[in-house]
Each structure stands twice: as structure tokens, then as C-alpha cells.
């Protein structure tokens, strides 16, 4: 779809300049350096630049350009784009700054540009970007300091500075790229378009991105879910903390979005999140050169015990297992290695090991079916010939279908070895932990690409009754709904505790008598969001007298805490005992939509933060994962002889809530707290709900 963007037959540079140091000159220089197609400089003040015939406007050029790179002052860009449209240009890269990032006038200009581009059916990269590079076609339509080396990594970045830094780093390490895209303000083309494009690009085998936000979260998830089956996607998403997200908002005029939502969305769509640019570069080096393993069983080969132990620890923390070797492997190792060596995993070939010993050990271990990948460690000891060890490792790695990552630890003494590894595209990491983390990324991708996405089952629900409850609340200008809206749950088949909403003490007594004791009494008031905090909940009421006293003291307490609260009555609930309290919640995330939350309930839930998140819609598979991923999950499966809770009923409820919040986008927040889960086979019941409605 975007071939003409990356492989155009001709490129116009609007705002081309002959003055050294100007962006218009740098772009032209870069194009001339490696691009083989026709280059058309546009500048009304010149007839010729760097030997190329120059035209006043793109409409004056005899041949149409397929791609136009715009390096004009922002105010002149809309006019230039109009002319591109008239000249039948397919794609534009707007490098110019001074758009949305700069203020209101800039934002207006940006909207105008987007409108013009849409009007003519063109596509636009930027504005406010570094440009794009395609090493296949030799196109360097950017003002980067140098052209990228050819490789199989496609990289996009919302920061131009990270683009240039990465290019320079890659140059030093010999890492190459297929495509390089500076996303800029993403007024038209965004990460979603480029993900799709790179999925089908034969020259790309791994996709990397630095993002400060995504443009359309649900679409991103849908695309990434598809693309991640074909190619690994590694993303650094910044703005994770309060201070970081403030910087994102200030920089881009967008919300950074909640980090939980990004984690959930990435995990669900198969995107691997790197915690830093360094980690992203580590991962893409591994992906660009090494095969993806079938499992997570790792062997470690080392000439130093300490490094081996560190690596073993790191493997454990990264969720990798150390392979248990076949007996034959151990026997073969025993044959050649010094008797003092360690033949089990981590394999210690000892400090005096020569390259042939390394080679033998690697070959032997690679043959073992219990090994999915190898981490090779080397410490430069007096007898260590780092260079020839590197050569042997390279030789074995190139021939292997299992991934091999290295950590030659040291400084000047390992440089020679490192160079050899770089030349052979074997990633070497300064310290073992980074090698382990990269190996874990390879292994995780092995799981991701085989993953099957199950569409959530459709749940029969009485949407109409929910619709009318919400409509009524809105007409009364109520934005927070509580207990009085239990029927919403009933409409979705979520079991609720037996309740009765009453207005007077007498009614409360009658309802309790009819329901049977013990009962719980809760205040009904749209002015009160935390009932417990104001004395609005009384539990374990055993008889008529209890109900009467509870009613009077509750009214007195509530009025004392919130004198102006309008109390519409109380709710009498059947007291449920013998269950465990869990919470199911939803908060509509600005980027990804409904973010479901699950956690164990109780007083300390806000402190412990032992909760899991997923982006709706979810089916039973993800729902089950949400449950099992909280730390306190064993409490639900039963500890110390307790009977297990009815986990299936929680899974069901989560799926139902998922559908409810998908069906009603006006529900901005939702919470069942608590959901009382009874022992296995006895189900669960919602005890209380709270939801926030949007204004339109």
C-alpha cells in the first residue's frame, strides 16, 4: 500500500536549499547520496541546486513526483500540499515543525494539512519529523546525519532524536535496518499504518518502535495481534510515571495513558514491551540475527563460575528454565572437558579453556533436544584467547537453528572478540543479565507467534432494560449510579444478592422480616460514594431490634458526615457468609477503551494493589489468566485445607462485565465491589455496584 512512499520512482524536495547547514540542503544531500530515482528540487529562488534542475513549484516540474518531502516554514506547508495534490503526488513527508506541538495556530495548520491530504487521497508522514529511510530502495528522505546500513529491522519513532541516536548506535555496532520512520505528529500516517505495511514487507523481520502514545488503541491492538503472528514487535512506550506522563502531555498534547492499560494491551496483542531504548536495541539485535526457539530451556556455557551463577539467577527471574541435559550429553562433555569442569548446566569449561573446548561444548549442547537456546559467557583470563573463541562461537551459531547469545564480559581485552561477533551478527552483551533478558524476549515471542486468538462468546443479555436504566439516570442528570441500579447486573445474568430498596424504617423492618435474618443495611444516596466511610453500612443485623437501631444510628452518622447528602432510603440485603470477596472493575482508558480490573477484595486492596488488567472484550481464556495472574490467586484455589472458591463463576462474571461495558460505551467506570465468591459449585453474588455515566 505504501510502496510508493518507500520506493518512489521520483522524489521532490519542496524547500530544497543550496545553503549548507539548512534542513532543505541536508535532505537533498541525503537523497543524492544513495537514491537512484529522479530528484526534483523545488525552490522559486533557484534554477539549479547541486547540478539538479530546480523548479519554482511542483506544478512546474515536467515529471510528476511520486513522493514529496516538504521542508518549508509551517505556514507555507498547506499551500505546498495543495500543489502536491494537484500535481498528483502520492505521498508526502512533512519535515517542517511549527504544528500542533507549537500551539493553537500550529494545531490549526496541522488540521488544514490533514484535510488537504485527505482531499487529494494522498498520505502524509509527520509533520514535525526527521523523515523516512528505506535501505532497499536507497531512499534517504530525511535530515539524519547518515544513511542506515541495510538490514532486516524496521524501526519507527515518535522522537526524532531517538531516531538519530539509534542510527548512530547501529552504525557503530554494524546493525542494519530495512526501514526507518520518524513518525512526528502523526497527523495522518501513524504506527498502525506502518505496522500493517511492515507485516508484509519481505525485507523486514523485526519491528521496533519508540512511542509516546498510540493514535487509535483498539485499532492498534487489532493490527498488532495480527502482525505479531508474523513478526516480532518490540515497543518502548515512555511516559510511564506521573512525571513522565506530564512530560508527554506537554511535549505532544496527548495523554500518556495509564501504564496498566499499555501493559495489558501490549500483552494481549503480542507486543513485547522493552523498558528502555537500550533494552529495545538489545531485543531487536537478538531478533534480527537469531532464530526463535521452540521452548524456554536454556543452556549456559561459561569459562567463569561466577558469571555462570549470575546468569542462572537472571534466567530464573526472567522466567527461563535451565535445561536438564540428556545423559549422553553429559557423557560426551565428560569425554573432552577437564575433570574439574562442570558438566551440568551451567557448563563451566574452566578458565583455561581454549576455543576448541568451547567449540566442542557448544556442538554437544546444541545436539541436546532439551536445549532450546544457549548463552555463551567469556571472561578474559590470562590464558583466554578471546578472538578464537569468538570465531568458534560465530561458526557454531551461524550453522545452528537454535539461538545463541553472548556475553563476553570485559573491556579492551574482549574488543577483538566483540568485533568478530558483530561481524557475524551474533549479539554480544556487555553483561549477562542483558543477554538473558534478550533470550527471554526470543522465547516469549516463540509463545506469542503460536498463540490462538479466541473471539469472546456472545452472552445473551437484556440490553433494553440496561438502556432504559441509563437513559433515566441521564435524564435526571445523575452521573454516578450505585445500589439502586442492581438491575443492570441482573440484565446480564450476573447473580446479585437478594435486596430490597426501602424508604422508611417500617419498610426496612418489613423487608428484613420477609428476607430472613441476618441482613445487611446500606444507605441509598447518590451523594455518597464511599458508604462505609460515613457509617452507611451495617452488617450482621440479627433481628428487628438490630434493624431499628441500625437505621437510627446510620441516619445520624450519615447526616453528621455529609449534612447535605440527600438520602433516598436504605437497601436491605441478605447477609452472605462463607465466601471470599473479590473486585471486578472497569475504567475506560483514553487510548484503549474499557480496561477491566480484577483483584481480591477487602480493606487492604488499595494498598496491596494486587490486581490484574485486561482490555475488553475478553473471553474465558484471558479472563482466567486475569485471575491466575494476581499474587493472591492461591487464596481462591484454597490454602491450608480451605475449599476452593468457585473460580468458574468469577470467570463468567468477568466475561459478562466485559460485554456489558462493550455494549454501553457511555459507562465510563464500573465496579462490582465486593463480588462474594462462594465455594466451588455454589457460584458468586454481587453485593454492591458503582458506575459512572458519561455526559453524552
Amino acid at each position, binding site marked *: 500500500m505504501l510502496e510508493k512512499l518507500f520506493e518512489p520512482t521520483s522524489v521532490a524536495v519542496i524547500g530544497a536549499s543550496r545553503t549548507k547547514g539548512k534542513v532543505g540542503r541536508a535532505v537533498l544531500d541525503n537523497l543524492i547520496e544513495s537514491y537512484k530515482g529522479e530528484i526534483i528540487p523545488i525552490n522559486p529562488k533557484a534554477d539549479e541546486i547541486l547540478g539538479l534542475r530546480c523548479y519554482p513549484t511542483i506544478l512546474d516540474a515536467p515529471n510528476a513526483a511520486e513522493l514529496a518531502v516538504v521542508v518549508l516554514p509551517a505556514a507555507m506547508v498547506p499551500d505546498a500540499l495543495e500543489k502536491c495534490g494537484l500535481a498528483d503526488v502520492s505521498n508526502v513527508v512533512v519535515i517542517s515543525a511549527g*504544528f*500542533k*506541538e*507549537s*500551539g*493553537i495556530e*500550529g*494545531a*490549526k495548520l*496541522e*488540521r488544514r494539512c490533514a484535510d488537504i491530504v485527505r482531499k487529494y487521497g494522498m498520505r502524509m508522514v509527520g509533520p514535525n519529523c526527521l523523515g523516512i529511510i528505506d535501505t532497499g530502495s536507497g531512499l534517504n528522505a530525511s535530515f539524519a546525519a547518515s544513511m542506515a546500513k541495510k538490514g532486516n529491522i524496521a524501526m519507527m519513532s515518535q522522537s526524532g532524536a531517538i531516531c538519530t541516536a539509534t542510527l548512530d548506535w547501529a552504525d557503530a555496532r554494524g546493525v542494519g535496518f530495512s526501514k526507518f520512520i520518524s513518525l512526528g505528529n502523526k497527523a495522518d500516517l501513524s504506527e498502525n499504518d506502518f505496522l500493517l505495511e511492515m507485516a508484509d514487507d519481505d525485507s523486514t523481520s523485526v519491528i521496533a518502535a519508540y512511542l509516546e502514545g498510540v493514535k487509535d488503541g483498539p485499532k492498534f491492538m487489532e493490527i498488532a495481534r495480527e502482525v505479531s503472528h508474523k513478526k516480532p514487535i518490540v515497543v518502548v512506550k515512555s511516559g510511564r510515571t*506521573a512525571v513522565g*506522563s*506530564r*512530560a*508527554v*502531555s*506537554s*511535549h*505532544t*498534547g*496527548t*495523554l*500518556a495513558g*495509564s501504564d496498566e492499560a499499555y501493559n495489558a494491551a501490549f500483552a494481549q496483542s503480542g507486543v513485547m514491551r522493552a523498558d528502555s531504548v537500550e533494552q529495545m536495541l538489545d531485543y531487536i539485535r537478538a531478533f534480527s540475527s537469531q532464530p526463535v526457539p521452540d521452548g524456554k530451556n536454556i543452556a549456559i556455557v561459561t569459562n567463569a563460575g561466577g558469571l555462570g551463577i549470575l546468569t542462572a539467577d537472571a534466567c530464573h527471574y526472567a522466567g527461563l528454565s535451565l535445561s536438564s541435559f540428556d545423559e549422553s550429553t553429559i557423557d560426551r562433555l565428560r569425554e573432552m572437558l577437564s575433570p574439574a569442569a562442570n558438566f551440568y548446566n551451567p557448563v563451566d569449561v574452566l578458565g583455561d579453556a581454549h576455543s576448541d573446548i568451547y567449540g566442542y561444548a557448544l556442538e554437544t549442547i546444541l545436539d541436546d533436544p532439551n536445549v532450546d537456546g544457549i548463552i555463551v559467557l567469556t571472561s578474559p583470563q590470562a590464558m583466554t584467547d578471546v578472538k578464537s573463541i569468538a570465531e568458534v562461537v560465530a561458526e557454531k551459531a551461524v550453522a545452528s537453528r537454535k539461538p545463541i547469545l553472548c556475553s563476553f564480559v570485559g573491556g579492551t581485552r574482549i574488543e577483538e572478540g566483540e568485533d568478530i561477533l558483530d561481524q557475524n551478527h551474533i549479539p554480544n552483551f556487555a553483561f549477562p543479565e542483558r543477554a538473558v533478558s534478550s533470550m527471554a524476549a526470543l522465547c516469549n515471542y516463540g509463545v506469542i507467534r503460536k498463540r490462538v486468538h479466541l473471539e469472546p462468546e456472545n452472552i445473551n443479555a437484556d440490553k433494553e432494560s440496561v438502556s432504559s436504566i441509563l437513559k433515566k439516570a441521564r435524564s435526571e*442528570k445523575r*452521573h*454516578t449510579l450505585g445500589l439502586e441500579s442492581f438491575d443492570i447486573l441482573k440484565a446480564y445474568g450476573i447473580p446479585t444478592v437478594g435486596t430490597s430498596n426501602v424508604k422508611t424504617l417500617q419498610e426496612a423492618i418489613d423487608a428484613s422480616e420477609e428476607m430472613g435474618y441476618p441482613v445487611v443495611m446500606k444507605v441509598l444516596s447518590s451523594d455518597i460514594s464511599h458508604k462505609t466511610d460515613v457509617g452507611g453500612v451495617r452488617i450482621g443485623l440479627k433481628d428487628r431490634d438490630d434493624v431499628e437501631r441500625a437505621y437510627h444510628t446510620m441516619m445520624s452518622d450519615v*447526616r453528621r458526615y455529609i*449534612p*447535605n447528602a*440527600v438520602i*433516598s432510603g436504605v437497601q436491605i440485603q441478605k447477609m452472605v457468609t462463607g465466601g471470599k470477596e473479590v473486585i471486578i472493575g472497569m*475504567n475506560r482508558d*483514553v487510548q484503549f477503551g474499557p480496561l477491566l480490573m480484577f483483584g481480591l477484595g477487602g480493606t487492604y486492596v488499595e494498598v496491596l494493589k494486587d490486581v490484574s488488567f485486561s482490555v475488553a472484550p475478553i473471553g474465558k481464556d484471558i479472563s482466567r489468566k486475569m485471575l491466575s495472574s494476581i499474587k493472591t490467586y492461591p487464596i481462591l484455589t484454597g490454602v491450608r485445607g480451605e475449599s476452593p472458591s468457585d473460580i468458574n463463576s468469577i470467570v463468567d462474571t468477568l466475561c459478562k462485565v466485559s460485554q456489558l461495558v462493550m455494549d454501553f460505551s457511555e459507562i*465510563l*467506570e464500573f465496579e462490582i465491589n465486593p463480588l462474594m465468591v462462594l465455594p466451588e459449585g455454589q457460584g458468586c453474588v454481587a453485593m454492591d455496584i458503582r458506575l*459512572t455515566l*458519561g*455526559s453524552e
Partner: protein
Amino acid sequence: MASILISSSEKYSGKSSLCTGIGIILQNKGYSVGYMKPIGNMLVDVNGVLSDEDAEQMRRVFDLKDDRNHITPILLTDNLAEDALAGVEKHFDKTLADAFSEVSKDKDVVLIEGTGGIGGGAMYGLSDPQVSSILGTKMLLVTRYDSVYAVDRILCDIELIHDPDMLAGIILNEVDESQMTYVCELVVPFLKDKGIKVVGVLPKDSTLRSVPISEIVEDLHAEVLAGSEHLEELVEHYLVGAMEVNSAIKYFRRNPGSVVITGGDRADIQMAAIEARVKCLVLTGNLQPSGAVLGSADEAGIPVVLVRGDTMSTIGRMEGLIGHARFRKEHKLDRMVELIENNVDVDGLLSIIGL
């Protein structure tokens, strides 16, 4: 010539609104209406002359030509307080009576607005009941009905009026919709049993509590940075954005129609407010926000205004603006008149004061 003094249990109970509304209704009925606020407590400088803010408002609404010092003969200045405490005799009753007779000329009815609460001015011998007896006028008592405790307040206030004949009636103001039945079926009959006539029960009304953004801009001397074409939108609440961004978004969403006050350097909170589509952003501390945020606000059509003051002082100003139905805008006057016509026994009231 008829007259009535409109008094209230506490300040901000709705005296000015009722005065204006009743005055307009009377004018519409063909009466010539006079107005007096005997004791000015909200001083403003009008071209070198000290006056009272409410009085100025009424001069405009009723197009009054009377002298300012007849409409508001006594201004509560610091000097006045010191003199009163020192026991300096000022003969206020004469000043009052003279001004009243000036204002009454050629008028069918004079509306007299009390000062603050019913007991305000007592240290000068000028509480509402005292003024009422000096001028020989009846009183209409307005009380904001926030809870059943308002009944206590009413009974207490009435104790201050020694002569029961002086009370024309009371109006229960800003009654929550959900309390309406309770008030009409229990509170009103109870008061009637005590010999107190309730001439009106006015429901809470969001239009009256709201202010247009332009008024906030004017009052805070704010600079409009974005969204200048949306300044006539009305806001009903203000929120303070001082929390973590994810909590902020929830908080803003629960209170649509709000204006959000936050620091100019809190880009995250500003974006959360824009995302939650609040009505207006007030940025404090004279800290210019980032251009990117302004661009987004402009796109969303949300006014962003910048003030010099810090967040605390801005909150203070905002307290005085929102919820105190001042009538700078036509639509509020119309709404008030409509509310009075539908909920107050105006004819009954007129006959009590002999009109």
C-alpha cells in the same frame, strides 16, 4: 405606597435573585417599582462614588434614577464599625427614614433588600427586623432549605421578629427535587401550624447556579489562551486538579460541566481535563502551558484561561462566583422570573403588603 423587606437567615440564600425576580414581575404587572438596600455591605467604586454591588445591579435592571445615597444611605465601612464600637451616635433611623421617603416618591411599591443574614447590622441597631420597624414595612424571609435543620433556623429567626404581624411570609429556596414531597407534605404544614405562612417553595435550579465562562474570565482578570469562541458556555461547578493524572480523569468525568483549576505546569492534568471534555480550564500561577496542550484544547473547543493568582486564591474567587446566582446575564433573570411565577404565591404576597 406598599413596601416589603426581603431578609434571609444566612447570606447567599437568594435575596438578590428574589428581589430582582419579584421586581420584574411587579413591573410587568404595571407597577412602578422602587428599590432600596439600606445598608450596603458589598462596596464598589462607581466613578468615584461608593456604592453597593447589589444596588448597582438593581439600578440597572429596574432602570432607577434615584440618588445612590438614597438607594443605599448607609455603607458598612471600617470607620462605621469603629464609631459604633466607640459609641458615636449616628442617628441612622433618621437617615434611613429620609432616604426611604425619597425613594418612595412616585412609586407603587418599594423592595428593600436586607444585609447579609437577618441579624446583620445589629451592632448599629440596623438588623433586618430593626430596619423593618423603622420603616414600618413587613418582612419576607428567605431560607435555603438544605436539610430539615432549616426548620430550626426559621423558627429561631422568627424569634428575632418581635411583632408576628411584621412577617409577611417565608420562602423556602433551593429545595432539592428529592426533598420536594417531604417539604410540601411535612415542613410547610408544620410551619403553618406555627402561624407561619409559606408563600413559596423554590426548587434547586442548575441554570441559576451556573456562570458563563466569560464572567469567570472577567472576575479573575484572566487571559484567554484558547477556545475564545466558547466563552458563553455555562459552568456549574469547579474542580481542582491537584491529583495524579489517572485519578484526575475519573474525577473530571464524574462531574461534567465543570471548570477545572490547575497549575499552568500540570500538562498531564490539563490533558486529562481536555480528554474528559470539561467546560473550561483555568490555569494558575501565570505559568504558560505548553503549545501542544493549547493546540489540543483548541481542537476540542475548550477554553483555556490563564490567571496570575495561585490555585488557592483562584479557588477563593471561584467560590464567590459559582453557585451565587448573580444576574449579569439575561437568561438567568428570565429563569428566575419563571421559577417565581410557578412556585410563589405572588398575588397572596401582594395582598399581604396591601398592593
